[in-house]
């Protein structure tokens, strides 16, 4: 990584300097109307080479899975095989256009059709839609489907969604978007959903439950079938948050356990790039009850030809055209490359890696819920008086590691949520565990070293409170 401080583009500016030589105009020049001119927009004036160097140096400060270990809990920062890029770059995919029409797009439609079928099969569902462009978008699709299902049955009383406190943080926000109220269901002592609390919350105002399995504690919800049955018996539906699918592919199919609709993060489990704000894919799949409600259009096969069609009770369109198609090509490539046995092995290795790392880390960083974990585990940064998880996370940067997710889930104090994924070597896991152990020693011997970390980055510890309370959002000379 390039660790030298980089000046702002404004600081590189020199009056009159320019990076482009425009040709002489071949039409008469006319001055812009005075009312349209402004002099309060001090854009930097930079020559081409200075601009190229500036942005290249900035790009060298990027931290990515291609450069370092990235154990960001619940984000599944696995390696994205380069073969995905090769496949997505094939001219046939690259030059296809969504308005070309089905007769000119048979290959692209077939890929979508097959991908829908493969993902539905992986999750144990009847049908899938590739429309949603991100995980939270998929959640929105699923909850809208649940709402429409109740409305179509004339059941307008159901306005509440139950959400376990170990669920993904976006779930309550999704419910608010849809106009549902949320009711939090506490975790029991073993980290699973408190069944007594669930039962007492179930009545005829409950639209359903949103459940993340494995949960954000990295624990498999052992009562998932029981939970689904209780909710179904009370007239509700079950939304599955598929963010943590990486732990269970080829082993457990959520649809078989009674989940009615689930989103898949193709940019997590199925190795399409993420961490840069997109594009992603939060495609959704649904079982018997909700298959007809999927957003559309979806790819269909009629008389040996492929086309797009709207499911019969669809909630409608959620995305222009057909989802993020380039992402779909990458996910398809990945699934075909691994095959069914490979998908199972990826989950097994992800769980093995997490448990290996957990065994090394938990000697120093205690766990609130100690049982065997799935693809991730949540430790506590309670290693020394006066040192917090934030300090440990910042110090990890000095050791060349991206910090884990911190302070989430909220039910674990000083949480450090660590997800190594299946693509890391034992040496990398050892090096990360060693760094955490060393940092715990430093926390006791030299806490100031942690309080002032990071030390190796161009910018040190940021004042996050001032940044949130009094943000400066544009250049002020």
């Amino acid at each position: 990584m390039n660790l030298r401080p980089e000046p702002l583009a404004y600081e590189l500016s020199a009056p009159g300097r320019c990076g482009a030589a425009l040709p002489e105009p071949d039409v008469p020049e006319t001055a812009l109307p005075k009312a349209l001119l402004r002099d309060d927009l001090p854009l930097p004036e930079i020559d081409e080479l200075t601009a190229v160097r500036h942005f290249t140096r900035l790009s060298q400060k990027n931290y990515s899975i291609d450069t370092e270990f990235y154990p960001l809990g619940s984000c599944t920062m696995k390696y994205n095989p380069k073969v995905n890029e090769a496949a997505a770059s094939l001219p046939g995919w690259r030059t296809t256009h969504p308005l070309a029409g089905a007769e000119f797009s048979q290959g692209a439609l077939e890929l979508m059709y097959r991908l829908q079928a493969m993902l539905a099969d992986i999750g144990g569902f009847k049908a899938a839609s590739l429309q949603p462009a991100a995980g939270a978008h998929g959640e929105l699709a699923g909850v809208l489907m649940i709402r429409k299902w109740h409305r179509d049955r004339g059941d307008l009383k159901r306005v509440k969604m139950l959400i376990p406190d170990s669920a993904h943080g976006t779930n309550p926000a999704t419910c608010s978007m849809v106009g549902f109220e949320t009711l939090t269901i506490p975790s029991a002592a073993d980290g699973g959903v408190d069944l007594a609390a669930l039962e007492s919350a179930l009545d005829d105002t409950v639209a359903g439950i949103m459940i993340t399995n494995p949960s954000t504690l990295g624990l498999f919800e052992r009562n998932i079938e029981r939970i689904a049955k209780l909710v179904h018996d009370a007239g509700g539906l079950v939304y599955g948050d598929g963010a943590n699918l990486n732990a269970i592919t080829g082993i457990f199919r959520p649809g078989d356990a009674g989940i009615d609709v689930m989103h898949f993060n193709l940019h997590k489990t199925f190795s399409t790039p993420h961490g840069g704000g997109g594009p992603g894919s939060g495609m959704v799949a649904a079982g018997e009850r909700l298959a007809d409600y999927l957003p559309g259009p979806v790819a269909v096969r009629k008389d040996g030809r492929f086309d797009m069609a709207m499911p019969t009770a669809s909630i409608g369109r959620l995305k222009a055209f057909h989802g993020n198609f380039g992402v779909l090509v990458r996910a398809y490539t990945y699934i075909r490359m691994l095959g069914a046995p490979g998908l199972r092995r990826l989950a097994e290795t992800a769980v093995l890696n997490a448990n290996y790392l957990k065994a090394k880390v938990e000697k120093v960083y205690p766990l609130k819920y100690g049982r065997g974990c799935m693809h991730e585990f949540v430790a506590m940064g309670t290693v020394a008086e006066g040192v917090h998880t934030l300090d440990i996370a910042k110090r990890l940067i000095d050791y060349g590691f991206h910090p884990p997710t911190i302070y989430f889930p909220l039910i674990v104090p000083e949480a450090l949520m660590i997800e190594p994924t299946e693509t890391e070597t034992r040496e990398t896991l050892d090096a990360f565990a060693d760094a955490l152990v060393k940092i715990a020693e430093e926390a006791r011997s030299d806490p100031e070293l942690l309080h002032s970390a990071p030390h190796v980055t161009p910018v040190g510890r940021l004042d996050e409170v001032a940044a949130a309370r009094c943000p400066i959002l544009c250049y002020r000379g």
Partner: protein
Amino acid sequence: MKIDANARYRTSHEWARKEGSVIVTGISDHAQESLGDIVFVEFPEVGKTLKQGQTFGVIESVKAASDLYMPMSGTITAVNEALGGDPSAVNKDCYGAGWLIKFEPTSPAEWDGLLSASDYEKEAAAH
């Protein structure tokens, strides 16, 4: 952990205190300590009627955003606008200048179901 002996509490760490005919509510010292530096509070509309246990707003710190729950059913009569400019009062004086809302209770008997200061202290210490 500081406790206001005159207030009653919810296990979700809101406190409630009688001031004449209205109830004042905020978050406990334990809650502000766990959340860390508060950076934003989202308030309900004045005049809104909410049931006990419904969310009346959101409090956001550098660590997390948390829902705020009504300790009792009631109609919102005031929100602490001053926190918009400086939410740090919640950290500095959570039982005083850092209050969040005032409301007119619609089921005053709910007061008796809230935790006493000493019960809340035990509850908070256990977590």
